[in-house]
């Protein structure tokens, strides 16, 4: 087969398929999401979105237990959620191969924190592969399944944003069909109660010892001898930066990084005059070198953010290329809520109420930015609800406390928070932003939206019934595009001393296939008050005379601005023209 351009995530999907994977399961999260979106297109593999990473890891564990190969995918913070099954799956080991695809996000392009998955993997005693490009992603995933079965352990393939989302030439292979391993009752292996777990813990160490030996022999780890004056130990995409900027240096390229091949490292270090580690995030490799008593060059490279060819060059005394001077003071261009986004209606109301909003993660987190500035915290998925309760326990009275959470996030880890609120009997207000999709990560289906991975129909959770069953005293559904209706319901609910769930239900603007006719501003009627501009809609701005103007090409006719205009200055205009189709 000829080589074709593939993203790292496409290559992971291909590798898993070639390895005979039977099930792919995960929860979306940039930069990991496209793995399952690609895997679902292959025949012979069942793919599912789970409500969260813990469930996904347990489903995958069950597939393995049932004798088939499984891939489970998530972003780095997802592994925190899935850490509970992972840490004990290391003890039980596997039957069918079990591979975790975990994508780190150095530089936090789309994440709330930076984590190095290798550190968590080491704590969990599970092996790690680290590809440096798409070809390796494909090959390492195949190897990972073999290693999983050979050494009886789940295996992590650690990607990073640049490996997942850059495309490079990749040669694909054929699928190997793998027979199901017939089920056998093996409680000593799979029932991790203390007596049996103690035995498996000791066994895990012997498996790790065998894996350490594998680390020294696998071709995923290799020494490239060039000039012996400098030897660089590196892994992942950092390897590419080293090769680009320090082409003459000798390199120990590590593709299998837990457990580390100590003998290979010592051997390499003995062959070169000076040793340096170049790794993204960490410190991980450099800590291991320190414990091996190997003297390392102080490169000054940071463990925060991404590296690049030039940061590596400078670390070894090279000078950065000449650049042009900046030509102007530029306004930043943060991402923003789309024209017609239903979330805007809710945050408009919360702003008016001067609410203290414990927020959550999704597109709606953008409401924390000007001009809405109507979200006051964002920590991790699901945190909005527990934090709303905690803030009330602390006696917060500076404004009504409202927890706000998206539909996918609610299914992920909001339900248990709500259950806690009900159980505590304290009351409170929770808003679920039900835009019928997981918008932030690219419109995946979720258990609330009733759309399966691949786009087919699925059973949809009835949020109202669920909230009532959990113990909410009041459950009300509002149309967030109806600004005064939404505001009124929220005002009533925060005034009551009970537990209320308000469901703001309207589809994501990007899912509405036939937008309504756009609006325009009647110049004569506009008083320049700015009320519409403060909605932060990308379609609305001010002209040179401070009057509001609406870009009819962007406007989708949601009418929120019409409702905030007290001068009837915003009027419906005809349909926008057909724009044809580009690439």
């Amino acid at each position, binding site marked *: 087969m000829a080589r074709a351009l593939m993203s790292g995530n496409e290559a992971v999907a291909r590798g898993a398929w070639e390895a005979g994977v039977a099930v792919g399961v995960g929860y979306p999260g940039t930069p990991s999401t496209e793995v399952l979106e690609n895997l679902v297109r292959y025949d012979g593999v069942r793919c599912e979105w789970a409500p969260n990473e813990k469930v996904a890891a347990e489903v995958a564990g069950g597939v393995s237990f049932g004798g088939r190969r499984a891939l489970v995918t998530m972003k780095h913070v997802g592994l925190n959620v899935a850490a509970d099954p992972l840490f004990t799956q290391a003890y039980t080991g596997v039957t069918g191969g079990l591979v975790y695809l975990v994508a780190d996000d150095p530089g936090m392009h789309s994440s709330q924190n930076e984590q190095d998955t290798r550190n968590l993997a080491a704590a969990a005693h599970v092996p790690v592969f680290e590809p440096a490009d798409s070809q390796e992603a494909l090959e390492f995933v195949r190897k990972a399944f073999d290693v999983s079965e050979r050494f009886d352990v789940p295996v992590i393939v650690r990607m990073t944003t640049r490996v997942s989302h*850059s495309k490079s030439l990749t040669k694909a292979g054929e699928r190997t069909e793998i027979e199901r391993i017939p089920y056998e009752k093996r409680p000593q292996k799979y029932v991790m109660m203390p007596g049996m777990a103690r035995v498996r813990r000791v066994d895990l160490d012997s498996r790790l010892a065998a894996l350490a030996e594998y680390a020294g022999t696998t071709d995923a780890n290799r020494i490239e001898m060039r000039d012996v004056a400098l030897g660089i130990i590196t892994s992942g995409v950092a390897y*590419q930066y080293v090769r680009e900027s320090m082409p003459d240096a000798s390199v120990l390229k590590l593709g299998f990084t837990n457990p580390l091949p100590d003998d290979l490292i010592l051997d390499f270090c003995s062959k070169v005059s000076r040793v340096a580690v170049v790794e993204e995030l960490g410190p991980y490799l450099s800590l291991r070198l320190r414990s091996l008593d190997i003297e390392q060059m102080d490169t000054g490279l940071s463990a925060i953010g991404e590296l690049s060819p030039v940061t590596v060059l400078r670390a070894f005394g090279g000078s950065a290329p*000449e650049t*042009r001077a900046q030509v102007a003071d530029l306004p930043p*261009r943060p991402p923003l809520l789309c024209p017609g986004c239903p979330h805007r209606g809710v945050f408009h109301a919360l702003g008016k109420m001067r609410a203290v909003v414990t927020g959550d993660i999704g597109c709606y987190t953008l409401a924390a930015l000007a001009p809405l500035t109507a979200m006051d915290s964002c920590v991790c998925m699901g945190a909005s609800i527990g934090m709303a309760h905690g803030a009330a326990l602390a006696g917060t009275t500076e404004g009504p406390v409202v927890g706000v959470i998206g539909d996918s996030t609610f299914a992920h880890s909001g339900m248990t928070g709500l259950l806690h609120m009900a159980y505590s009997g304290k009351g409170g207000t929770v808003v679920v932003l039900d835009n019928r999709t997981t918008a932030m990560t690219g419109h995946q289906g979720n258990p609330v939206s009733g759309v399966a991975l691949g786009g087919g129909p699925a059973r949809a959770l009835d949020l109202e019934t669920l909230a009532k069953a959990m113990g909410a005293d009041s459950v009300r559904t509002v149309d967030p595009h109806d600004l005064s209706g939404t505001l009124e319901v929220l005002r009533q609910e925060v005034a009551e001393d009970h537990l209320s769930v308000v469901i703001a239900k309207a589809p994501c603007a990007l899912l509405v296939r036939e937008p309504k006719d756009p609006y325009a501003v009647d110049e004569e009627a506009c008083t320049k008050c700015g009320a519409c501009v403060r909605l932060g809609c990308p379609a609305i*701005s001010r002209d040179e005379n401070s009057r509001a103007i609406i870009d009819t090409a962007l406007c989708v006719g949601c009418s929120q601005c019409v409702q905030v205009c007290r001068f009837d200055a915003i009027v419906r205009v005809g349909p926008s023209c057909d724009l044809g*189709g580009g690439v």
Partner: protein
Amino acid sequence: MSVTTVVLAGVGGQGTILAGDVLAKVAVAEGYDVKLSEVHGMAQRGGSVDTVVRFGDDVRSPVVDPGVAEHLIAFEMIEAARALRFLRPDGRLVVNRRTVAPLPVLIGDLPMPEDLEPALSAEGAVFLDAEALACEAGSPKSANVVLLGTAAYGLPFARETWCRVIGERVPPKTVEANLRAFELGSNACAKGVCEA
């Protein structure tokens, strides 16, 4: 041959990612090693988007550092100015004469930067109006293909390869209009000035 780097800079939704994909495929078809890098996620919600295509005999890094790129094709003027740092002092700069106001400007917190055009002109920019040329080609949504045409003018790839890859990528009914858009972009650069 060493590596050539092209940066396509624009605003989420302008089609830079798809344009980058076409460019990368053309380079592959011409026999080069290629890497393409883009950032997904948050950025797609109207933020700044830089797509980087690198080709040569052996391409290592998928990302570009300041002062490295030979070509900067900017889909918007503010983003042209922002991405200018990537361009080598002797690099080629093509700018779509269009501004998309970012949120702080829309809501009146920050002014629109003034005199961007003369400033970019002083940096050697060639300007064009991609939207107008796309309309002229009969497909207003093909501004990104017009801009691909401008990139093509400075790159060592055969015209047939471009046409084939574009033809494979666009909706069948729009192939002709897109090829016209491509041609108009390329011709605009051939003339050296792209006065609209």
